[in-house]
């Protein structure tokens, strides 16, 4: 029944809450073993989509299949095949690490004889062995996050849904967490993960950008960056960055100048970077501002998404 190789198939999925359309005709497919990133600002409909895929919400219309199972008609089987980590930390504070693992092992129906093995695996994977007897309340954010992930994979589900798993966790813990996600993907698990940290997008095999209930872009990070045709980005270093900024503020073709590290990021309103660079150099020389470096740079994921969202808003107007 599940020979098609898709972990998630969404077709024309809609969820309405009264007049509000939270998810607006979304369609996409995620192959098995992929790390699929789900990006977008708060309120874009990411959590609603994930909750429908986990069988926690019923779709208004359209269909979705997880591991070949229909979310509307087979929610019970779906729950055996997924691991879910909700946005809010949701383990029991007053139980120890091991007791939480025991409980979730039980409700996921892990057979008694396999439970010690799964528990040890999770403790090892989450690198949380030394805290096994600690009350969950006493753990810091990074530990809790890893434990929550561990509890969601006790039954070794083929598909994992992680809803903003790294929100509120420090950068080092976040990097460690993404390493775990990669390990899971390498052992054949599909990981469907939402985030609003743009830098995390780079960790994903493929991305979908969701905005106001719609998927406005979908593809591998590199593809999406190449697809950015409405803008180009320049790196500008100068001993007098503030003067340079002021000089460029009213230069034609420059749509934005921002301080970035020690230098400036100059955004051009078109794809013709060479012409733009000449224009910038000209403007700065006219004011006698020295330029130590000026070159075209690869846009960040954030640049890509800001540009796409702006384009989407222009379309709406």
């Amino acid at each position: 029944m599940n020979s098609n190789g898709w972990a998630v198939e969404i077709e024309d999925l809609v969820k309405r809450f009264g007049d509000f359309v939270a998810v607006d005709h979304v369609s996409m497919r995620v192959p098995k073993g992929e790390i699929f990133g789900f990006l977008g600002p708060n309120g874009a409909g990411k959590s609603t989509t994930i909750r429908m895929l986990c069988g926690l919400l019923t779709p208004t219309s359209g269909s979705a299949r997880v591991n070949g199972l229909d979310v509307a008609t087979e929610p019970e089987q779906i729950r055996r095949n997924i691991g879910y980590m909700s946005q809010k930390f949701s383990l029991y504070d007053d139980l120890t690490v091991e007791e939480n693992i025991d409980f979730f092992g039980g409700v996921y129906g892990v057979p008694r004889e396999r439970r010690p093995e799964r528990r040890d695996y999770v403790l090892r994977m989450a690198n949380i062995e030394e805290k096994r007897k600690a009350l969950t309340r006493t753990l810091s954010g990074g530990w809790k996050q890893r434990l929550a992930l561990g509890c969601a994979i006790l039954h070794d589900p083929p598909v994992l849904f992680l809803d903003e798993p790294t929100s509120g966790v420090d950068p080092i813990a976040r990097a460690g967490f993404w390493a775990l996600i990669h390990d899971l993907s390498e052992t054949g698990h599909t990981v469907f993960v939402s985030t609003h940290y743009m830098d995390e997008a780079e960790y994903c095999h493929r991305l979908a950008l969701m905005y106001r209930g719609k998927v406005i872009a979908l593809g591998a990070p590199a593809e999406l960056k190449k697809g950015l045709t409405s803008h180009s980005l320049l790196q500008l270093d100068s001993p007098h960055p503030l003067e340079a900024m002021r000089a460029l503020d009213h230069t034609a073709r420059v749509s934005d100048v921002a301080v970035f590290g020690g230098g400036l990021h100059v955004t051009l309103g078109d794809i013709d970077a060479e012409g733009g660079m000449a224009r910038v150099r000209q403007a700065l020389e006219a004011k006698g501002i020295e330029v130590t470096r000026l070159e075209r740079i690869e846009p960040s994921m954030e640049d890509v998404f800001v540009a796409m969202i702006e384009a989407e808003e222009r379309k709406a107007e």
Partner: protein
Amino acid sequence: MSYRRLRAVWIKELRHIVRDARSLAMALAVPVMMLVLFGFALSLDVDRIPTLVCDQDGTQASRDLVRQFQGSRYFTITGFVADTGAIDRAIDRSQVLMGVVIPRDYSRDTGLGRQAPVQILLDGSDSNTASIALGYAETLVRNYSLALRSQMQNRRGGGALAPPVDARLRVWYNSSLESKNYVVPGLIAVILMIIAALLTSLTIAREWEMGTMEQILSTPLRPVEMVLGKMLAYFVVGLADAAIAVVVGLGVFQVPLRGSVLLLAVSTCVFLFGALFWGIFVSSAARTQLQAYQIGILTSFLPAFLLSGFVYSIEDMPPVIQLISRIVPARYFVTILKGIFLKGSGMRILWGELGFLALYATIVFLLATRRLNRKLA
């Protein structure tokens, strides 16, 4: 339904209970406190009524009458006064509850078969106590006056004159008419209802508030397993409470246990099931823990206290209220407990009540499970 998942919930809930030592201590101490407090305070007995005597007759007979009062355990003579005004003042200051005024010529008039009214003055601000005290005093005076009259007439010749009717009352089941015997079994029912509903009223609302419910809903755990697992964990606490209450009732209040202990245990279990399921239902219907707690108190304490017949007799209530009391499970449990403790009633008499409790538990269980199911969509 999977036993494995149910067991996981049960163990997890037991761990919550044990870890929250303060709540557990409360849950076990509250029944004892309530039992002792209500058991002693809710006494409907009138005992050792402080009484002033104004003996205007001053004869052998009137002193004998006073001795009758002194000999009764219902009255305590706190002093003698010369005029009735002193009694009024003492009642006004709440120093005494009752005054007895024996009129001049009491012994002579009584001996002649004439009316010689002994005056009883009472503090009516507690009308219940006052009317009971009046009853005791009237009986005492009437009996003594009758005895006195026949004695005097005997002395003047004539045969012994027996009082026309010699009524002897025999009260069954609670032969000493001690109100504690009546109050304590009912109290056990009320306490268990409150404790059970409160124990469980937070359990699901808390999971929603903490966000753990969202996590649980994504697992294969079914509402049935969750409701049963939670109920069975709190059932352990409820059973401990019941045992404590019965032991205190028997030990401290010396309430007789005339019926079968097994029937007592079985009916307590059935009642606890219903009460615990009710708390879970309230918890799954409420939006917050606070709301769940308030609804839990309101729907357990008030009906159990007022409509169970535990102190307030259901027969004296307006018909509409009587009708409502028919759906209050505590009412049936109060009847069962009084039956087992005081009358030694068995299944043959109590099967109707027990059947209702079982039906109630089943219905509330289905409601709670359905409610939880609906929250999914």
